[in-house]
């Protein structure tokens, strides 16, 4: 996998650039996951607020709800949950697609036609997930906060304006920047693992299944490792 990543970095900055395919993959990555991220984010915000409310009410700290929810979601829960959802959706899709292309000799056909399949298939996909995941995470966070605001509005009569004012008061640059940087790495990991597993798929339909499955498992596992490292580094530089 390290060699695969090295090959990616070597290829990503060299000509020819597959702009058209990068654009197509970016659209597919974002478009395919949008609904899933929206639903997951909305339910996350809703459930998180509903579950936290009684405890905060016990301490008379319900007014802290927007701050607590927004910081938790923006810093940690939003990026991790969205990345896990995308690892399932995008990572497995890439593993299966490239795996089946490998098994049916489509990748060989591409190479024989004088096209570099690594650049066309792998570099464009990894770059697309790296660029799109931060946007999906920002979108997911926003929808999650909307879900939380709805609960607060219904249960506590807090207006949407007041809720989001409190959210913006609570969130600082030190919350947003590490989370955004982290999400770039999450995107890279999902694309890298999905493509690696698919591109190195074993022969046969069973190989495609294994590639797809292990893409999700390894990507999910690596997301937590990256998350741990990111939190560790953020702690040093951003005083969280």
């Amino acid at each position, binding site marked *: 996998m390290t060699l695969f990543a090295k090959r990616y970095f070597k290829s990503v900055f060299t000509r020819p650039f597959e702009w058209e395919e990068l654009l197509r993959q970016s659209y597919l990555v974002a478009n395919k996951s949008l609904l899933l991220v929206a639903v997951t984010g909305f339910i996350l915000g809703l459930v998180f607020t509903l579950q936290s409310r009684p405890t905060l009410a016990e301490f008379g700290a319900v007014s802290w709800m927007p701050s607590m929810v927004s910081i938790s979601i923006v810093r940690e829960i939003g990026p991790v949950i969205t990345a896990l959802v995308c690892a399932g959706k995008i990572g497995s899709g890439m593993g299966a*697609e490239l795996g089946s*292309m490998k098994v049916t000799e489509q990748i060989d056909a591409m190479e*024989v*036609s*004088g*096209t*570099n399949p690594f650049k066309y298939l792998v570099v464009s996909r990894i770059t697309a997930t790296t660029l799109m995941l931060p946007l999906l995470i920002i979108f997911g966070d926003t929808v999650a906060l909307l879900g939380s605001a709805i609960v607060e509005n219904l249960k506590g009569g807090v207006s949407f304006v007041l809720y989001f004012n409190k959210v913006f008061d609570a969130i600082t640059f030190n919350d947003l920047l590490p989370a955004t940087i982290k999400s770039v790495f999450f995107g890279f990991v999902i694309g890298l693992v999905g493509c690696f597993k698919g591109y190195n798929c074993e022969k046969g339909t069973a190989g495609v299944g294994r590639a797809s499955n292990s893409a999700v498992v390894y990507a999910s596992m690596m997301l937590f490792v990256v998350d741990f490292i990111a939190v560790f580094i953020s702690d040093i530089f951003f005083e969280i």
Partner: protein
Amino acid sequence: MEIEQSREVILEISDLKKSFGSNQVLDNFNLKLYKGENLVVMGKSGSGKSVMVKCLVGLIGADSGRITIKDKNITSLSQESLDLLRTEIGFLFQGSALYDSMTVRENLEFPLRRHKKRLQINETNEAIVLEALKSVGLAYAIDLMPSELSGGMKRRVALARALILKPSIIIYDEPTTGLDPITAKEIIALMNSIQDTYGTSALIITHDVDCARVVADRVILLIDGKNYIEGTFTELSTSTDAKVRAFFK
């Protein structure tokens, strides 16, 4: 022999060796393809035919030996030069290998988009794609997806894709495998008509004796990774050698 010496060699393999672990797949294999010739390489499954063609187009590296296509040694070419040389070769894969996320039109346009400028092709993509599809009798299938095509149609579209850059060499890897006898005959007829129309040289890898009988100018029998015998189809099919007879029976 004199005739062979006067003809232009377009592709040559010399002393090719390839092994996977302890399994020696190709052992000093040699081959010469002359301009305008249909050369058939026959051998039973697992004899190293597909490995040989994959070495030939640089999909897998050989352990030793020399592969020359149009006087260029492919093992010493840069990636860019190899890609350019590959535009001179059309490759028909055993399983057709059509890009299943693209329509027939997009499948054919794919190599065109990449090499059109470099090869200084002035016609429109539409015209080139249609011409290639007409040559295989499938112009009506231009907007279909590969999943909507039958096995024979897929093979013909793959052939049209192999022809799209007007290559001088076509490599057929088991062109009739998996097809019913009637469709197989259609593909064989198509291979001959393509050679007549485009004047291509063809290297045909097959274990289909009927296919070899119709298309071969010359046949090489590959046994245990070596050139076992070489000659015309008639010479080989009337051979008294037990191994050759077993194959042609």
